[in-house]
Protein backbone atom coordinates (compact mmCIF):
# COMPACT_ATOMS: atom_id res chain seq x y z
CA UNK A 1 0.00 0.00 0.00
CA UNK A 2 1.34 3.45 -0.84
CA UNK A 3 2.35 5.97 1.81
CA UNK A 4 0.15 8.97 1.05
CA UNK A 5 2.76 11.27 2.58
CA UNK A 6 4.36 11.00 -0.83
CA UNK A 7 2.15 14.00 -1.64
CA UNK A 8 2.84 15.93 1.57
CA UNK A 9 5.70 18.17 0.34
CA UNK A 10 3.62 19.42 -2.59
CA UNK A 11 0.51 19.82 -0.42
CA UNK A 12 2.57 21.90 2.01
CA UNK A 13 3.36 24.17 -0.94
CA UNK A 14 -0.41 24.67 -1.47
CA UNK A 15 -0.54 22.38 -4.50
CA UNK A 16 -4.26 21.56 -4.74
CA UNK A 17 -3.67 18.91 -7.40
CA UNK A 18 -1.39 17.07 -4.97
CA UNK A 19 -4.09 17.34 -2.32
CA UNK A 20 -6.47 15.78 -4.85
CA UNK A 21 -4.11 12.84 -5.30
CA UNK A 22 -3.91 12.46 -1.52
CA UNK A 23 -7.71 12.65 -1.32
CA UNK A 24 -8.08 9.86 -3.88
CA UNK A 25 -6.40 7.50 -1.42
CA UNK A 26 -7.49 9.06 1.88
CA UNK A 27 -11.23 9.51 1.46
CA UNK A 28 -12.31 5.89 1.77
CA UNK A 29 -10.51 5.08 5.05
CA UNK A 30 -11.51 8.46 6.49
CA UNK A 31 -15.18 7.91 5.70
CA UNK A 32 -14.99 4.40 7.11
CA UNK A 33 -13.48 5.77 10.32
CA UNK A 34 -16.65 7.83 10.85
CA UNK A 35 -19.00 4.90 10.42
CA UNK A 36 -19.98 4.71 14.07
CA UNK A 37 -21.16 8.31 13.93
CA UNK A 38 -23.51 7.71 10.99
CA UNK A 39 -26.72 7.92 13.04
CA UNK A 40 -25.56 10.94 15.01
CA UNK A 41 -23.88 13.34 12.60
CA UNK A 42 -24.07 14.07 8.90
CA UNK A 43 -20.86 12.22 8.04
CA UNK A 44 -20.66 13.76 4.56
CA UNK A 45 -20.64 17.28 6.02
CA UNK A 46 -18.19 16.34 8.79
CA UNK A 47 -15.87 14.67 6.31
CA UNK A 48 -15.83 17.62 3.91
CA UNK A 49 -15.22 20.08 6.75
CA UNK A 50 -12.44 17.88 8.14
CA UNK A 51 -10.74 17.69 4.75
CA UNK A 52 -10.84 21.48 4.39
CA UNK A 53 -9.22 21.82 7.82
CA UNK A 54 -6.57 19.24 6.94
CA UNK A 55 -5.68 21.31 3.89
CA UNK A 56 -5.25 24.35 6.13
CA UNK A 57 -2.96 22.65 8.64
CA UNK A 58 -1.03 20.47 6.18
CA UNK A 59 1.87 22.96 5.77
CA UNK A 60 2.65 22.52 9.48
CA UNK A 61 2.66 18.71 9.44
CA UNK A 62 6.09 17.20 9.95
CA UNK A 63 6.74 13.56 9.04
CA UNK A 64 7.51 11.51 12.17
CA UNK A 65 9.19 8.54 10.52
CA UNK A 66 6.00 6.52 10.29
CA UNK A 67 3.86 6.41 7.12
CA UNK A 68 0.72 8.45 6.48
CA UNK A 69 1.31 11.28 8.95
CA UNK A 70 -1.24 13.49 7.17
CA UNK A 71 -3.85 10.74 7.09
CA UNK A 72 -3.31 10.03 10.78
CA UNK A 73 -3.85 13.71 11.48
CA UNK A 74 -6.96 13.66 9.29
CA UNK A 75 -8.39 10.77 11.34
CA UNK A 76 -8.03 12.88 14.47
CA UNK A 77 -9.46 16.03 12.89
CA UNK A 78 -12.46 14.15 11.50
CA UNK A 79 -13.09 12.28 14.73
CA UNK A 80 -12.88 15.42 16.85
CA UNK A 81 -15.29 17.22 14.55
CA UNK A 82 -17.70 14.29 14.66
CA UNK A 83 -17.52 14.13 18.47
CA UNK A 84 -18.20 17.87 18.72
CA UNK A 85 -21.15 17.64 16.34
CA UNK A 86 -22.57 14.60 18.10
CA UNK A 87 -22.32 16.26 21.50
CA UNK A 88 -23.85 19.46 20.14
CA UNK A 89 -26.80 17.37 18.98
CA UNK A 90 -27.15 15.86 22.44
CA UNK A 91 -25.60 12.46 21.75
CA UNK A 92 -23.03 10.67 23.81
CA UNK A 93 -19.93 10.48 21.61
CA UNK A 94 -19.76 6.85 20.48
CA UNK A 95 -16.04 6.37 19.84
CA UNK A 96 -13.55 6.03 22.66
CA UNK A 97 -9.92 7.01 22.38
CA UNK A 98 -8.96 3.31 22.27
CA UNK A 99 -11.00 2.93 19.08
CA UNK A 100 -9.04 5.71 17.44
CA UNK A 101 -5.81 4.11 18.61
CA UNK A 102 -6.88 0.79 17.06
CA UNK A 103 -7.74 2.59 13.85
CA UNK A 104 -4.34 4.24 13.69
CA UNK A 105 -2.60 0.95 14.42
CA UNK A 106 -4.54 -0.73 11.61
CA UNK A 107 -3.56 2.08 9.29
CA UNK A 108 0.09 1.67 10.25
CA UNK A 109 -0.21 -2.05 9.55
CA UNK A 110 -2.22 -1.98 6.33
CA UNK A 111 -1.61 1.47 4.85
CA UNK A 112 -4.17 3.59 3.03
CA UNK A 113 -6.38 2.20 0.30
CA UNK A 114 -5.11 2.38 -3.22
CA UNK A 115 -6.78 4.38 -5.98
CA UNK A 116 -9.29 2.50 -8.15
CA UNK A 117 -7.72 0.28 -10.75
CA UNK A 118 -8.31 0.55 -14.52
CA UNK A 119 -9.99 -2.86 -14.73
CA UNK A 120 -12.56 -1.86 -12.13
CA UNK A 121 -13.16 1.37 -14.01
CA UNK A 122 -13.69 -0.50 -17.26
CA UNK A 123 -16.17 -2.84 -15.60
CA UNK A 124 -18.10 0.03 -14.04
CA UNK A 125 -18.23 1.80 -17.39
CA UNK A 126 -19.61 -1.35 -18.98
CA UNK A 127 -22.23 -1.64 -16.25
CA UNK A 128 -23.10 2.04 -16.67
CA UNK A 129 -23.78 1.46 -20.36
CA UNK A 130 -26.43 -1.06 -19.40
CA UNK A 131 -28.39 1.34 -17.19
CA UNK A 132 -31.81 2.46 -18.31
CA UNK A 133 -32.01 5.98 -19.73
CA UNK A 134 -33.43 7.88 -16.76
CA UNK A 135 -31.32 6.29 -13.99
CA UNK A 136 -28.25 6.82 -16.11
CA UNK A 137 -29.15 10.46 -16.75
CA UNK A 138 -29.61 11.05 -13.01
CA UNK A 139 -26.35 9.31 -12.17
CA UNK A 140 -24.46 11.23 -14.84
CA UNK A 141 -25.91 14.53 -13.60
CA UNK A 142 -24.63 13.86 -10.10
CA UNK A 143 -21.25 12.75 -11.41
CA UNK A 144 -20.92 15.82 -13.61
CA UNK A 145 -21.92 18.17 -10.78
CA UNK A 146 -19.38 16.65 -8.39
CA UNK A 147 -21.21 17.91 -5.33
CA UNK A 148 -21.42 21.47 -6.62
CA UNK A 149 -25.17 21.81 -7.07
CA UNK A 150 -28.27 20.84 -5.09
CA UNK A 151 -30.29 17.91 -6.44
CA UNK A 152 -33.25 20.21 -7.12
CA UNK A 153 -31.21 22.04 -9.76
CA UNK A 154 -29.95 18.80 -11.32
CA UNK A 155 -33.48 17.41 -11.43
CA UNK A 156 -34.87 20.55 -13.03
CA UNK A 157 -32.16 20.51 -15.70
CA UNK A 158 -33.25 16.97 -16.60
CA UNK A 159 -36.94 17.84 -16.53
CA UNK A 160 -37.54 15.48 -13.61
CA UNK A 161 -39.36 16.07 -10.36
CA UNK A 162 -36.94 16.00 -7.45
CA UNK A 163 -38.30 12.75 -6.01
CA UNK A 164 -38.16 11.08 -9.42
CA UNK A 165 -34.55 12.21 -9.79
CA UNK A 166 -33.66 10.81 -6.37
CA UNK A 167 -35.39 7.51 -7.12
CA UNK A 168 -33.41 7.28 -10.34
CA UNK A 169 -30.13 7.95 -8.54
CA UNK A 170 -30.92 5.10 -6.17
CA UNK A 171 -31.93 2.77 -8.98
CA UNK A 172 -28.74 3.57 -10.87
CA UNK A 173 -26.53 2.81 -7.86
CA UNK A 174 -28.33 -0.43 -7.11
CA UNK A 175 -28.18 -1.56 -10.74
CA UNK A 176 -24.49 -0.71 -10.94
CA UNK A 177 -23.78 -2.55 -7.71
CA UNK A 178 -25.69 -5.61 -8.88
CA UNK A 179 -23.89 -5.58 -12.23
CA UNK A 180 -20.52 -5.30 -10.46
CA UNK A 181 -21.33 -8.16 -8.11
CA UNK A 182 -22.21 -10.32 -11.10
CA UNK A 183 -18.81 -9.32 -12.47
CA UNK A 184 -17.13 -10.58 -9.31
CA UNK A 185 -16.41 -7.23 -7.63
CA UNK A 186 -16.63 -7.27 -3.84
CA UNK A 187 -18.32 -4.08 -2.67
CA UNK A 188 -17.70 -2.55 0.75
CA UNK A 189 -21.28 -1.84 1.77
CA UNK A 190 -24.64 -3.46 1.33
CA UNK A 191 -26.90 -1.39 -0.87
CA UNK A 192 -29.88 -0.14 1.12
Amino acid at each position, binding site marked *: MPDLDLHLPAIAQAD*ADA*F*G*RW*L*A*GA*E*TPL*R*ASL*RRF*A*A*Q*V*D*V*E*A*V*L*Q*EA*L*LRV*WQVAPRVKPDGRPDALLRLAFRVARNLAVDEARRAGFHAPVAEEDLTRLLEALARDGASE*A*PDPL*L*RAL*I*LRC*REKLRRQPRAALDA*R*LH*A*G*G*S*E*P*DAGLAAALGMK*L*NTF*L*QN*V*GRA*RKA*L*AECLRRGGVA*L*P*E*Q*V*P
Partner: protein
Amino acid sequence: MTARDAREALVEAAAGAYRPRRPDGAVGTSPAWHDLDAAGREEAFAAATLSRRLEAALEPEGLSSTARSVLRRLRRP
Protein backbone atom coordinates in the same frame (compact mmCIF):
# COMPACT_ATOMS: atom_id res chain seq x y z
CA MET B 1 -45.94 9.03 -3.21
CA THR B 2 -45.85 6.36 -0.51
CA ALA B 3 -44.14 6.80 2.84
CA ARG B 4 -41.54 4.29 1.67
CA ASP B 5 -40.86 6.32 -1.48
CA ALA B 6 -40.54 9.47 0.60
CA ARG B 7 -38.08 7.78 2.92
CA GLU B 8 -36.00 6.46 0.02
CA ALA B 9 -35.90 9.94 -1.46
CA LEU B 10 -34.59 11.32 1.83
CA VAL B 11 -31.92 8.62 1.98
CA GLU B 12 -30.80 9.41 -1.57
CA ALA B 13 -30.79 13.14 -0.90
CA ALA B 14 -28.69 12.69 2.25
CA ALA B 15 -26.31 10.36 0.39
CA GLY B 16 -25.40 13.03 -2.15
CA ALA B 17 -22.20 15.06 -1.84
CA TYR B 18 -23.71 18.52 -2.15
CA ARG B 19 -23.72 20.37 1.13
CA PRO B 20 -24.70 24.01 1.71
CA ARG B 21 -22.41 26.51 3.36
CA ARG B 22 -23.11 27.85 6.79
CA PRO B 23 -23.04 31.63 7.28
CA ASP B 24 -19.55 31.26 8.83
CA GLY B 25 -18.31 29.45 5.70
CA ALA B 26 -18.24 25.99 7.26
CA VAL B 27 -19.79 22.99 5.53
CA GLY B 28 -23.48 22.74 6.42
CA THR B 29 -25.54 19.62 6.96
CA SER B 30 -28.11 18.14 4.60
CA PRO B 31 -31.72 19.04 5.50
CA ALA B 32 -32.71 15.55 4.32
CA TRP B 33 -30.31 13.96 6.81
CA HIS B 34 -32.10 15.75 9.67
CA ASP B 35 -35.43 14.34 8.51
CA LEU B 36 -34.21 10.73 8.68
CA ASP B 37 -34.41 8.41 11.65
CA ALA B 38 -31.32 6.53 12.86
CA ALA B 39 -31.86 3.59 10.50
CA GLY B 40 -32.33 5.94 7.56
CA ARG B 41 -29.12 7.77 8.43
CA GLU B 42 -27.24 4.47 8.48
CA GLU B 43 -28.69 3.66 5.06
CA ALA B 44 -27.64 7.06 3.76
CA PHE B 45 -24.11 6.44 5.04
CA ALA B 46 -23.96 3.06 3.28
CA ALA B 47 -25.36 4.54 0.07
CA ALA B 48 -22.84 7.40 0.19
CA THR B 49 -19.95 5.00 0.81
CA LEU B 50 -20.85 2.92 -2.21
CA SER B 51 -21.64 5.94 -4.38
CA ARG B 52 -18.28 7.58 -3.65
CA ARG B 53 -16.44 4.41 -4.52
CA LEU B 54 -18.27 4.16 -7.83
CA GLU B 55 -17.76 7.85 -8.57
CA ALA B 56 -14.05 7.65 -7.82
CA ALA B 57 -13.69 4.60 -10.03
CA LEU B 58 -15.45 6.34 -12.91
CA GLU B 59 -13.39 9.51 -12.64
CA PRO B 60 -9.99 9.30 -14.37
CA GLU B 61 -8.17 10.90 -11.41
CA GLY B 62 -9.98 8.71 -8.88
CA LEU B 63 -11.83 11.61 -7.30
CA SER B 64 -15.30 11.16 -5.86
CA SER B 65 -17.92 13.90 -5.70
CA THR B 66 -16.83 14.52 -2.11
CA ALA B 67 -13.22 15.04 -3.15
CA ARG B 68 -14.21 17.28 -6.06
CA SER B 69 -16.48 19.35 -3.83
CA VAL B 70 -13.66 19.85 -1.30
CA LEU B 71 -11.15 20.75 -4.00
CA ARG B 72 -13.57 23.26 -5.48
CA ARG B 73 -13.99 24.93 -2.11
CA LEU B 74 -10.31 25.20 -1.34
CA ARG B 75 -9.57 26.58 -4.80
CA ARG B 76 -12.39 29.13 -4.52
CA PRO B 77 -12.86 29.83 -0.80
